[in-house]
C-alpha cells in the first residue's frame, strides 16, 4: 500500500507535465535504443560466429591443441584419427575438412569469401538435413550445397546455378541454411571427395575430427581414454565446448565483441547521464515543494522513495518506447547486414534491467540534492 501511494504520487508528479514527461521518456528511449542496438550487434556477431559450430552433431570433436577457434586453420594429421578409432568405446572417428576460399557471384563474377565444408556423405555428423536429401546429387563431381542465408553479394543462387568456387567450376544441387558471419559471407558444403579436388587440399591434413561413441558408452570416459592415448597430440572437446569457445573468442578476444560490448557500456553511461539530467531538473523544479514535504513531517525516506519511483516510471516509459523502436531497427539491421538480430526475451529483460538500473542510479545521484534541501528556508 505504501509502495502504491509513493508510486501514485510519483506518477502524478510526472504526469502533471505530460509534455516534459514525453520528452524525458524519449531521452531514456534514446539510451534504450543504443543499448538494444549494441546488444543486438554483440549477439548478432556471437550468434553468427557460432552458426557453424552449432551444427556439429558428433559426441566429441578432436582438434589440434593449438587451435584457438574454428577459423584459425590449424590442422592435425589424419593418422591420429586412425589411432582414435582403436580407442575402446569409439564407434566412429571421421575427419571434417574446412577451407576458406572465394565464391564467384554467378551474375557479376565478384569474388566473396566463403567457408567450404567437406563432409562424409554417409555419416556427416552435421545438423544439415539437406545432406541426406541431396546425398545422391552430391556424389557427382563438382557439386555443392549452397547457403541460402549467404549475403546478397554472392548473387542469386538456386539449384542448378553454375559458378566458380576456388577457381573451379561447380554446380549447385541444393540449398541449406546457415548464414554469414564476420569472417565469411556464407557457407558452401560438398563431399570429402569433391573437397580434395580443390587446390591445396590434402586428405591427411584434418581440421576437425568428429567422434561418435559406441552405444552405452559414457562420453566423458571415452574422452579420457582418447586423451590418455594422445595426451599432447590433440585436444578433445564436446560440441558444446566448441560453441562456447567460439562465442568467447568473439566476445572477449575479437575486436568486434569488445567494440560492441563497450558500446553497450557507453549506452548505459549515456542513459545514466541523460536520466540524471532529467531527474535533476525534475527535482530542481520541485525543490521548494519537496522541502515543504519535509517540513510538514514526512521522513527523508519518503522523498527518497518518491524520487526513485519517478526514476522507475521514467525508465519504464523510456523502455517501452525504446523497445518498440528497437524492434523496428532490428528488422532493418538484419535485412541490411544479414546478421542474426534476435530480440529474445532474456535480451529484452536484460535491457529492461539495465534501463531500470541506470535510472535508479541517476535517481540516487539526484537524491543528494533533495536530501540537501533545508525546509527552514521556506520561512
Amino acid at each position, binding site marked *: 500500500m505504501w509502495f502504491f*501511494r509513493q508510486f501514485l*504520487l510519483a506518477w*502524478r*508528479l510526472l*504526469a*502533471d507535465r505530460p509534455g516534459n514527461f514525453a520528452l524525458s521518456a524519449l531521452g531514456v528511449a534514446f539510451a534504450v535504443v543504443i543499448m538494444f542496438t549494441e546488444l543486438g550487434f554483440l549477439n548478432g556477431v556471437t550468434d553468427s560466429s557460432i552458426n557453424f559450430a552449432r551444427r556439429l552433431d558428433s559426441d566429441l570433436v578432436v582438434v589440434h591443441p593449438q587451435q584457438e577457434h574454428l577459423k584459425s586453420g590449424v590442422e592435425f594429421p589424419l593418422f591420429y584419427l586412425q589411432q582414435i578409432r582403436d580407442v575402446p568405446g569409439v564407434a566412429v572417428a571421421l575427419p571434417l575438412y574446412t577451407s576458406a576460399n572465394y565464391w564467384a557471384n554467378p551474375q557479376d563474377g565478384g569474388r566473396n569469401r566463403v567457408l567450404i565444408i567437406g563432409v562424409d556423405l554417409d555419416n556427416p555428423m552435421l545438423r544439415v538435413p539437406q545432406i541426406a536429401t541431396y546425398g545422391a546429387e552430391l556424389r557427382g563431381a563438382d557439386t555443392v550445397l549452397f547457403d541460402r542465408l549467404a549475403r546478397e553479394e554472392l548473387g542469386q543462387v538456386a539449384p542448378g546455378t553454375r559458378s566458380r568456387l576456388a577457381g573451379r567450376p561447380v554446380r549447385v544441387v541444393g540449398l541449406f541454411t546457415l548464414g554469414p558471419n564476420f569472417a565469411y559471407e556464407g557457407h558452401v558444403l560438398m563431399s570429402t571427395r569433391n573437397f580434395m579436388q580443390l587446390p591445396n587440399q590434402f586428405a591427411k591434413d584434418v581440421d576437425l575430427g568428429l567422434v561418435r561413441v559406441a552405444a552405452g558408452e559414457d562420453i566423458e570416459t571415452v574422452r579420457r581414454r582418447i586423451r590418455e592415448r594422445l595426451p599432447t597430440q590433440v585436444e578433445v572437446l564436446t560440441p558444446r565446448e566448441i560453441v562456447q569457445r567460439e562465442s568467447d573468442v568473439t566476445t572477449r578476444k575479437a575486436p568486434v565483441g569488445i567494440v560492441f560490448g563497450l558500446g553497450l557500456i557507453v549506452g548505459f553511461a549515456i542513459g545514466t547521464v541523460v536520466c540524471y539530467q532529467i531527474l535533476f531538473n525534475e527535482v530542481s523544479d*520541485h525543490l*521548494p*515543494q519537496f*522541502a*515543504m*514535504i*519535509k*517540513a*510538514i*513531517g*514526512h*521522513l*527523508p525516506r519518503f522523498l527518497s522513495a518518491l524520487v526513485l519511483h519517478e526514476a522507475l516510471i521514467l525508465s519504464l516509459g523510456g523502455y517501452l518506447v525504446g523497445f518498440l523502436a528497437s524492434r523496428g531497427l532490428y528488422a532493418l539491421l538484419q535485412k541490411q547486414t544479414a546478421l542474426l538480430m534476435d530480440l529474445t526475451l532474456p535480451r529484452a529483460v536484460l535491457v529492461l534491467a539495465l534501463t531500470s538500473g541506470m535510472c535508479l542510479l541517476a535517481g540516487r545521484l539526484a537524491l543528494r540534492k533533495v536530501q540537501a534541501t*533545508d*525546509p*527552514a528556508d*521556506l*520561512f
Partner: protein
Amino acid sequence: MNHAAPREVAIEVAGVNHHYGKGEARKQALFDNHLTIHRGEIVIMTGPSGSGKTTLLTLIGTLRGVQEGSIKVWGRELAGLSALEQVKMRRDIGFIFQAHNLLDALNARQNVRMAIELTDAPRAEFDRRADAMLDAVGLSHRLTYKPRNLSIGQRQRVAIARALVNQPRVVLADEPTAALDKESGANVVALLRKLADERGSAVMIVTHDNRILNVADRIVNMVDGHIVSDIRLKETMAICAILKKCAVFKDMSPSDLTDIAQKMRSEDFAAGTTIIRQGDTGDKFYVLAGGEAQVVIESGRETRGVATLKEGSFFGEVALLRDQPRNATVQALTPVSTFTLSKENFLAAVKAHKSFDEQLSAQLFHRGG
C-alpha cells in the same frame, strides 16, 4: 481581569542564542531570548525584517536545531533532538508558509491529504477530513482544482487547510493573511482562534497585517535579535482605556499610551490591605483593573472615607506630579488587581508629552486640589 489560574505552558524559550555562518562570516541572529507562550494563546510577532523573528519561528518549529539555550514545546526539549526526532516532532506542528509551496501536481484535496497521511487516521477518513477542512476555509467548491487553477488567495487557503487539518497543538504561521482579502483573512483568523480556544493550541503568527492584530493575546516585538516588548494585548487595551480617562494622558496618541501601558507592572492586593498610605512619599501611579478600594483621609484624629474606587479608576498621580507625600490612604475593600507605573516612568511620559506646568495645572484643576 483574572490572573489567578496558572495556565499550562505550551512553548518555553529560555536563553536562546543563534548564529549563522562559520568562522569570520559567523553572525549572531538571536541574543538571549526568553518567551513563554501558554496553552490557547495566540502570539503575533512583529519587527523589521532581519530582526530574527523568522529564525525564532524555525527554531520552535524544529526546522533548525537549537544551538544555545533551551526551547520546550509542550514540555519536550528541542535542544539536542536528532534529525529524525525533529521530523517527527514537526508532525504535531501546523506550518503556514508565506510561499504556500503546494504540490502543483496535486489538487486541493490531495494536497491536504499529504498532511493527513502523516497521522494514524483510517484511510477511509482521509477524503472526508480533507473536504471538511477545505470547506472550513471556504473552498468546498474547489476540491479538485490544482493550484495553478486557483487564485493566490485560494492557494494560500489550501495551504492553511493543510496546516490545520490535523488540529496541531502548535501553529507557526508566516504572514498567513498577506494574500487574502479582508473577509477570508478574518475567516482564517477565526479558525486559528477556534483552534486555540477549543484545542488549546499555541499559535505564533509573524505578520505585518494590522487587520488581524486584534486576534492576538500578545504581541511580541523583535529588533536586532532581541525581544524588545511583549504586550498582553487585552490588558494593554484595558489599561489604555483607563489611562485615557486620566487628564494627564487624555490627549496622548494610542502608541504613546501603549508605550506607557507596557511599562506598567501588575500588582495584586488582598482585601483589607493598604495600597498607599497618607503621608508616605509617592513612588507609583496606580490603575485599578479589578476589585474595589476605598480612599480615606486622616485629619487629626478623624478618619474620613471620601470615595470608593471601582474597576477602571486610577489614583496616586497627584503626589507624583507635586512631588509631595500622599494626601490620602487607599485600602482594598475586595481583592484588588492593579497596574502600576513607577514615578520615574510616569514623569518621563508626562514630560515628553506636554509642558509640565500645563499638565500640573490641568490635573490640579480637575481634582480640585
